[in-house]
């Protein structure tokens, strides 16, 4: 192929294994088939009562259950499944012996309502306070809840199960988390800290309090019926995102190590970029400069010009504000080339997988490169006249794709982009 270093003299970072789980199913095959068929994984929530909630649908992963029932436990199981698939494909190291560090994007962990209510019922009084809770919390009967609800518990389990090396990192950059996990892996390989990195992103947190939290910020769609039609990126009548669950995993390696062990190269992480927005906790700066800067930084990191991008896998949450901002900023960066670049949103089908989104969508971007087929933006019936994207409306499209930009713009001003290619650039 080509030299092991990119045009800046850094080790080329390749992908040798991928795994994914979403509401569409477990594994790349099921997900890709349904994604390109324009199927939606969004349903009315059945996991808990939805009376009293403004938004009653989500992209839950209902075919995976954990016992005891906790979001953290489900989050962990989804990560495990995606990782098993990625490692199975990469065939690197040995069972429980991955030769590199773990970077895990994970939803913030906390004590959950089933356990909190369990504690309340155990107090034995009907009027009590946190002092009473404290009095019955010790003595060891709830010891497993200490471990379960530590922030580092999911990474700890994955590190032990898959034998990753060194101190595993759990991270959050809100909706950009999945991209950040991949970015950290790329940086570690580029500076020679590791020849391989396991980058995983996971989120299994559709529970009452999570739905309420997003609902109170008016971020969620309330077009509950039919649920599959709720997520409408770039449409005139979009009204918010649909919360969803999922996990994405990638094995990253230096090109040199991958070739040396005869690994099959699935693609290249040609560039990553990140830029913080300091305008507001949930809204982007109106001038779009941080998002524009993020995309340009990523192009520069890959050493590519805008016209060399063949497809953009959008953040595309379907909030009134994101989609408009995303169009305006993308138009600035890509200018006259934009009409030739299809921009589609996977979130129209799998919903917003929050901490997992950046990695789930990176996997879908690599599958796009492999199959030369761009998944659609579904539910695109009434285009927003102010958003002049070619959104690949409703039906997937075969195309010549050599480079994909995948964008993630999160709460708290976290903007991150990746550029994925089939071959080194």
């Amino acid at each position, binding site marked *: 192929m080509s030299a092991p270093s990119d045009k800046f003299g850094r080790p080329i970072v390749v992908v040798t294994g991928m795994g994914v789980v979403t509401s569409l199913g477990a594994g790349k095959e099921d997900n890709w088939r349904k994604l390109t068929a324009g199927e939606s994984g969004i349903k009315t929530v059945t996991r808990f009562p939805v009376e009293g909630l403004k938004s009653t649908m989500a992209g839950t992963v209902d075919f995976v259950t954990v016992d005891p029932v906790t979001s953290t436990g489900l989050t962990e199981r989804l990560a495990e499944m995606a990782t098993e698939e990625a490692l199975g494909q990469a065939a690197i190291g040995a069972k429980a012996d991955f030769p590199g560090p773990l970077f895990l994007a994970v939803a913030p962990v*906390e004590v959950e309502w089933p356990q909190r209510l369990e504690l309340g019922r155990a107090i034995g009084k*009907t*009027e009590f306070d*946190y002092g009473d*809770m404290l009095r019955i919390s010790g003595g060891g009967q709830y010891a497993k809840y200490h*471990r379960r609800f530590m922030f*580092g518990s999911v990474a700890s389990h994955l590190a032990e199960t898959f034998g990753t090396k060194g*101190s595993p990192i759990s991270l959050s950059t809100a909706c950009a988390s999945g991209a950040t996990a991949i970015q950290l892996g790329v940086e570690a390989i580029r500076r020679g800290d590791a020849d391989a990195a396991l980058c995983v992103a996971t989120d299994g947190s559709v529970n009452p309090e999570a739905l*309420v939290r997003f609902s109170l910020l008016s971020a969620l769609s309330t077009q509950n019926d039919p649920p599959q039609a709720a997520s409408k990126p770039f449409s005139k009548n979009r009204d918010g995102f649909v919360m969803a669950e999922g996990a994405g995993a990638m094995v990253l390696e230096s090109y040199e190590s991958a070739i040396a062990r005869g690994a099959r190269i699935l693609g290249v992480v040609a560039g990553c970029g990140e830029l913080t927005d300091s305008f507001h906790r949930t809204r982007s700066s109106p001038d779009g400069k*941080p998002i524009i800067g993020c995309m340009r930084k990523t192009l520069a990191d890959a050493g590519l010009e805008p016209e060399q991008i063949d497809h953009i896998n959008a953040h595309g949450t379907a909030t009134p504000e994101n989609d408009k901002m995303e169009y305006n900023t993308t138009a600035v960066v890509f200018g006259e080339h934009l009409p030739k670049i299809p921009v589609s949103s996977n979130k129209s089908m799998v919903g917003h997988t929050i901490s997992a989104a950046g990695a789930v969508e990176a996997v879908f971007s690599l599958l796009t490169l492999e199959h030369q087929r761009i998944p659609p933006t579904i539910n695109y019936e009434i285009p927003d006249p102010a958003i002049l994207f070619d959104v690949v409306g409703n039906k997937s499209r075969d195309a010549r794709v050599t480079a994909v930009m995948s964008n993630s713009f999160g709460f708290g001003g976290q903007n991150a982009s990746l550029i994925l290619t089939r071959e080194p650039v």
Partner: protein
Amino acid sequence: MTEPKSSPAKEVWITGIGIVSSLGEGLDAHWNALNEKKINVDDKRFAPYIVHPLAPVTFDAQIPKKGDQRQMEAWQRIGTYAAGLALDSAGVKGDKEILGRMDMIVAAGGGERDLAVDVAIMTADAKGNSSPAFLNERLMNDLRPTLFLAQLSNLLAGNIAIVHGVCGTSRTFMGEEAASIDAARVALARIEAGQSEIALVGAAHNGERSDLLVLYEFGDFNLTEKFTPVWQREDNSGFALGSAGCFLVLESREHAEARGAKPYAKLTKVVADLAQRKQPGAVTKSLEALWPKLGVTGDAGNLITGATGAEPVTSEEKAFLRQHPGFAVRATGTMFGHTLETQFPLGLALAALSLSRGALFPPNDPSAFEVEKAGSPDQIVVVGAGHWQGEGMALVEAVK
């Protein structure tokens, strides 16, 4: 991010330090408090539990807009405040050019509860008022909409960006004590390799939280009844949660010299691992394995540890420290309590402060495991062993 791999590692300086804690705020206040062996504990408010409460702070001084303060709970206020102190200390506050490209790695917990809402729901449930929609309705009606933003782990970084204008790359690591060891490790590695030039690294912790006490009580980790210094807790083990915020500015020597900035110290190395703690002695072994990777010269020196009195980790760490008797030990858990994610940055900060002031601060230990150490140190080792997982060390050196 364009440095080829073959370049030698850049030297990294600590050019800014911000600390706010139970001992006060700022470097002078902390230096004086440590030299006076001050300890600030409250054994009444959460009795029988003991906490190190935040010293009185005027948040306006670093978070001028009340609107910004109202968007946060205590944890984010403490952190945003300490970040401001660090930026002042480094002389970059208000320097839009530098701040606009300054990288950030925050080690975060988060999730502060609205205790009143929780208790109202729990008591109603205990009374038997649980219709299927009960939980949904209570949460929808009683939670203030912006509480979520005050709880979100990555929003400490978000608030630092909004209030102080730090806008380069921004990562938030989670994972209790280990998160900030890795934050320092990754920030150092990035600057050494030329992937970053200047970074803000640190954490904050609100230890005055009943909900956190419950979480640690699940594992019987809390210190109760009587406060004792860390090395005197064999018969009554546990940690006392502490409130603190601590941030450091790390910078390549080149970048610092170009703008005329003076270092407190050099951050030479950070190493970390996660031992499987299935057998007794696992932590001792893990620390022993990390030691040679640090590059400590000689078998006598200075060591600041985040040991907190929780068991079995404190005893296992003590066994490791006993293998290096030439090192004078200082346990920050005694003076600051256990500040979780903030413990390791505190250790780094106090190491840098000590080196810059030409002395290790005095021991604070009636059991005399900590001993006096005269002279001006060249190196200080910082050790962190998480109460349930994660071990790490750093080497901080004087800049001659």
